[in-house]
């Protein structure tokens, strides 16, 4: 590019949009983590036992499921879709992990088999979205219903069996003083951030999500990143289902229900655009941890359930408003000017 620049005088102003965006994304991610830490510290006023390392440990454990699910959801949203099948995929992962465990061979056969099946179902979602032009909302809702019903039929209502040992170790074990799930979350987040932000695959996801047509013209085989996003989302949900099974040592048929909307909320609170093309996984992790912290603190308030939910909703809206990029940009401009 520099070689064809006609002269220094005609040089256009440097394109700083991307830098600006990165900085505001970093700021909003930092803000959301700051908000979480403030919330944890402030929760001491609610109960003196809160704000301790123990509470952080509880929060990370409870948030770990949401973090894994929200990574997949975030990728699908990034490419301009929405995955409503994750609740069923969580259930499927959990149910198959317990019923196949022992009956189908070693857990090192069962776990990959379940994840491959999940990936297949995710890919089917993508087929419907890409080639049959079914809106993602409808496609994933339908496949979710099918999967949930299949799980109901397969178990005749009562999922049996126990968790694979690997997931018991993951959810209950510890390495020295640190719980295993905390280590897992750190590694998962680092790998996922790297995949989304530092690889060619990640770049293609952003390109496809920002403008599918432009990405196609630029030579991206657009179906590949889209299909990969749906498949990864299904795999993440199935994996989270197995984590839940390890946590509770058993599966139930409605175990995924409480993660669908929070997974979308984490992504949006984390600063991603619900329309796709924009966002970072670090923000999503912040969103997931913020939501879980909020749940923990609020449940310690001695209030009626109704008011607790009102407060939870109000804080989420407040956080979204506070973290809006344009607001941050305006504030920065003002402080700069």
């Amino acid at each position, binding site marked *: 590019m520099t070689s064809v620049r006609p002269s220094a005088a005609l040089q256009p102003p440097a394109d700083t949009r991307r830098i600006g965006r990165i900085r505001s994304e970093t700021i909003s991610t930092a803000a959301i983590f700051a908000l979480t830490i403030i919330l944890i510290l402030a929760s001491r006023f609610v109960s003196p036992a*809160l704000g301790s390392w123990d509470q952080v440990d509880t929060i990370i454990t409870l948030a770990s499921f949401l973090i894994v699910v929200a990574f997949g959801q975030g990728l699908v949203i990034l490419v301009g879709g929405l995955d409503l099948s994750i609740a069923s995929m969580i259930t499927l992962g959990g149910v198959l992990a317990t019923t196949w465990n022992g009956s189908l061979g070693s857990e090192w056969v069962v776990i990959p088999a379940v994840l491959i099946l999940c990936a297949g179902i995710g890919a089917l979602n993508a087929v419907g979205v890409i080639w049959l032009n079914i809106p993602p909302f409808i496609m994933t809702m339908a496949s979710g219903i099918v999967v949930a019903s299949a799980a109901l039929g397969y178990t005749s*209502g009562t999922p049996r069996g126990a968790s694979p040992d690997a997931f018991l170790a993951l959810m209950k074990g510890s390495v020295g003083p640190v719980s295993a799930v905390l280590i897992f979350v750190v590694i998962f987040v680092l790998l996922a951030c790297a995949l989304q932000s530092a690889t060619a695959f990640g770049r293609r996801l952003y390109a496809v999500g920002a403008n599918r047509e432009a990405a196609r013209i630029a030579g991206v085989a657009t179906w590949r990143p889209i299909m990969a996003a749906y498949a990864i989302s299904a795999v993440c949900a199935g994996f989270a289902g197995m984590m*839940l099974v390890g946590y509770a040592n058993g599966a139930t048929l409605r175990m995924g229900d409480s993660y669908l909307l929070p997974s979308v909320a984490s992504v949006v609170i984390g600063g991603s655009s619900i329309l796709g093309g924009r966002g970072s996984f670090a923000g999503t992790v912040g969103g997931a941890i913020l939501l879980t912290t909020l749940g923990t603190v609020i449940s310690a308030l001695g209030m009626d359930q109704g008011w607790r939910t009102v407060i939870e909703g109000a804080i989420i809206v407040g956080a979204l408003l506070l973290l809006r990029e344009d607001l941050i940009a305006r504030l920065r401009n003002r402080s700069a000017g």
Partner: protein
Amino acid sequence: MTTFRKLLMTTCVAAGALASACMATTSSASADDAKKFKIFLSLSYSGNSWQSEAANIVKALAQTPPYDKEVELKEVISGTDPQAQIAAYESMIDAKADGVISFPISSTALNRTVKKGCEKGVLFFMYDATVTEPCAYNVSYITAGFGENTAQALVNALNGKGKIFLSRGVPGNSVDKRHTDGAMHIFKEYPGIQVVAEYYAFWDDRTTQQETAKALAAHPDVDGIWAQAGEFGAIQALRDKGTRLVPMTGENSNGFRLALADPEAQKNGLKGVSAGSPPATAGYAFKLMMEILTKKRDLKAMNIQYPLPWVPADKVTLCKGDTFEDGCNTFPDGKVPSSFVTEVFSPEFLPELSLKSALDGAPTPGKTIQPLPAEVVKAPNEPGINCQKCDPPADLYKLTKIEPTVKP
């Protein structure tokens, strides 16, 4: 030859026709006798152990002789919206159902449709949850005092003082409210009892575990837990935090009963009682309905009370076989999932059933339907639960299973 053959054939055909004509009259008469009752099993939702066990029991009974020849059972699952169940009832009435056995999702929303069905001669039997429409039969343990009895058991175990959690069911649900009102009636008598956290856990093990974990983060010094269904999750949440357990009361999951009887868990502080909602109610209601349909029983629509299961730690007995025999009430570890609700059997009401019935809806080979005891227990009135404009008895929260051992 050919003529002979023809003749023979004609005779045969004539004889055959005559015979079949005779058969036809007899068989049409017996077909009338053996006309199958068209019965619908209407679930609001499925997917937790309790709901599927209750449905499986009904399915197993419908395949047990002689019901296998008398009943045509269809299952309809309509989801958690009252509207969907109303629509399901409507189509059952249109299909000329003889009876509907159902877990109703709302105690009031279904009333109009139920009334319409009653007028067309459909028998409505509600199990576990209830409706306030007087033409329906409600068969339930709800009025048997789960809340107040378990609360008193917890107060006794805590010597009348301590910080407790309330692990509740589904917000806004009449059953959850009845249980909690009964429990609070007792807890309020004891100023030493302090409810430090109250959360809705939707009668689900996993939600209970997570909600209890959250409450424990704020109140690690909790002294006791009063729980509705999902109680095994509360034990898991305590175990996640270390070895310390606390006195707690809960419903009938196999995991909870095993823990209650486990000497190790007792040493770590667990004591309490397992009581609450028995899926066996569905089977009892179905057999009552069948006895009415087959004219073996004459019973007007009424509220019938199913006995409250009550199993303190020292009464937990492991079953050797596949059903409740010799007074056993819990299955060994590994035989059923920990969330399995054990109260699927009743030697008195449902001797036809075994574990396979509850898990897969299959009949027990060699068993036939046994008649129910003649007496039914009338349930007390509870406004909003089993009647509309009615007064509750003065002794609504009277203790029936346990005596207070501590003075308020």
